């Protein structure tokens, strides 16, 4: 049962430099996204790309560049683009989607049933070119004969960029975007248009796209009665004050039973105590903090 053990290691461990660890900590402190040890080699590769582009020599010099104004903020955004790959696709974070479908959805539906409401509202905040909200719509359509029987739902999808919204509304995607979709779902919810895939009207009718700036208070206050918010790899580009403001608005938009999902390895630590971290299978989410609510109402 146990293979003949050999003393030779399969691979040598990667030894990150102290400067790389400083870059990792800086990214977490300022952007709120963590690169775990198994991603340090990847982080190093992305730093090396930026070092080359900037004509620098060492990671130490690059760390200085990330911490020295006026370059710091812009360069951090360039690095974040590299480490989040900058491009989205359907069914991007499967554990998160499984958590929404199997753990969160039953809890939300139970809470709404107690309120005698049978309509579900999901918000994809920072929806980019539409892959995330369409993914959510497909998952919820799949539940229409099961958990969502007798329910209605809508996915509200917002982004700051008007061009992204236009692409999303067109609903046409290349192979890269759809590579993670199960064959049966692809067949059911897409049709070929030449080399591209078009999202079927059944899915498109469930998603409402709107241009919205998360930093604009007036626009944000119009978003109410939301059950689930997804805001993935968006807040990492905001400064601390703006992040706090957006999170506060999300808190107001959500029902008391509502959930906030961030991108993989994104955290609200040190940003807000209005939400509590909860663990789902292989993913995390945030729920409204009851202690805080009681404090506010009491």
């Amino acid at each position, binding site marked *: *049962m*146990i*293979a*003949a*053990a*050999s*003393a030779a*290691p*399969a691979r*040598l*461990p*990667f*030894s990150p430099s102290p400067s790389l660890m400083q870059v990792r900590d800086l990214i*977490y402190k300022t952007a709120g996204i*963590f690169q*775990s*040890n*198994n*991603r340090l080699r990847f982080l190093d590769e992305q730093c090396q790309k930026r070092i080359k582009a900037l004509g620098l020599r060492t990671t130490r010099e690059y760390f200085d560049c990330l911490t020295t104004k006026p370059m710091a903020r812009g360069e951090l955004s360039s690095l974040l683009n590299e480490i989040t790959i900058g491009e989205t696709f359907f069914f991007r974070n499967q554990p998160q989607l499984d958590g929404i479908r*199997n*753990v*969160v959805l039953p*809890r939300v539906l139970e809470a709404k049933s107690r309120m005698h409401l049978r309509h579900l509202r999901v918000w994809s905040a920072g929806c980019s070119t539409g892959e995330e909200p369409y993914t959510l719509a497909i998952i919820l359509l799949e539940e229409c004969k099961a958990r969502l029987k007798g329910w209605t739902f809508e996915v509200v999808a917002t982004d700051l960029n008007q061009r992204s919204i236009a692409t999303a509304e067109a609903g046409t995607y290349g192979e890269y975007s759809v590579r993670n979709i199960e064959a049966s779902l692809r067949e059911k919810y897409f049709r070929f248009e030449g080399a591209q895939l078009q999202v079927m009207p059944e899915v498109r009718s469930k998603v409402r796209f709107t241009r919205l700036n998360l930093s604009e208070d007036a626009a944000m206050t119009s978003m109410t009665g939301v059950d689930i918010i997804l805001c993935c790899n968006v807040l990492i580009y905001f400064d601390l004050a703006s992040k706090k403001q957006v999170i506060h608005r999300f808190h107001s938009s959500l029902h008391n039973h509502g959930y906030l999902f961030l991108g993989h*390895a994104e*955290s*609200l*630590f*040190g940003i807000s105590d209005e939400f*509590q*971290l*909860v*663990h*789902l*299978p*292989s993913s*995390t989410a945030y*729920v409204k903090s009851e202690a805080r609510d009681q404090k506010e109402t009491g």
Partner: protein
Amino acid sequence: MTRMPCDPKLLQKLQSARELPTLPAVLIPLLQYLERPLDSQDVHQIVDLIAKDESLAARCLQIANSPLFGTTREVESIQSAVVVMGLERIHQIAVSCSFLKLLPSMKDVSPSVFWAHSLGCALVAREFAGKIGFPDPGKAYSAWLLHDVGIIALLAVAPEQFATALRLARSEHIPLHEAEKRELGISHEEAGKIIAGIWHLPPEIANVIAHHHSPDEASKDHALVSIVGFSDLLCRLNGIGYGYSETQQTNFAEDPAFIGLASQFARIQPFDLARFTFETEGTLEEVRAVVSQVYGGKH
């Protein structure tokens, strides 16, 4: 939860110890070393003990050369591993590998899945203990590694019933100890308490084995038990459980064991649990890689 009354024959089998596996010979002196003060531990004795068993030595080197134990350069012998990594780390590696010897006799839980869970829990517990300021997490490592030996006991005396419990847990996505209580009337904590007595394990290890899913019930070693209770749940949530996923939501801020630890260790308030969770993902990825290497990818 419906609890089945425990079959008296099963209990008798556990207590009579006739069908239980014996503790691997090499593990006994390794555990005894823990009882000695650090300055009286003999490096040569540990090195000789490991080197005497070729397969154990080879496995120890595989683990020593993974990032799990913090090595920064390749080690080719147990002696050099001690020099590079220190006696405590080599001791932990040796305990982890000798524990493997208990596992191949199991039928219904893949030994690699079980070992990955035990190793993952011990490593996550050690990391967490270090962060919150728990004294001497290195010494506690063995207790955390052995926390689930009750499963070995159940597999030995009631393999069919245990398999049914595992199937139930898998189909309903519930914690294994709950399925055991429903199917066997006894959990691996309770079975583990019996086997810990038979093996004459030190009392703090026995406490961890008996109460890791219910740290509140431990009369002593509360922090030691709670830390592995926390890391056990975190490992299961991160896909290093018993080969299936549990559909549950956990809010550690409301977990009695976590609240107990927070009241005891000031560093937990505030503790960046999100960051620790992301760090754990990296550790567990390495655990999977090492386990796959040791088992030759057969799991």
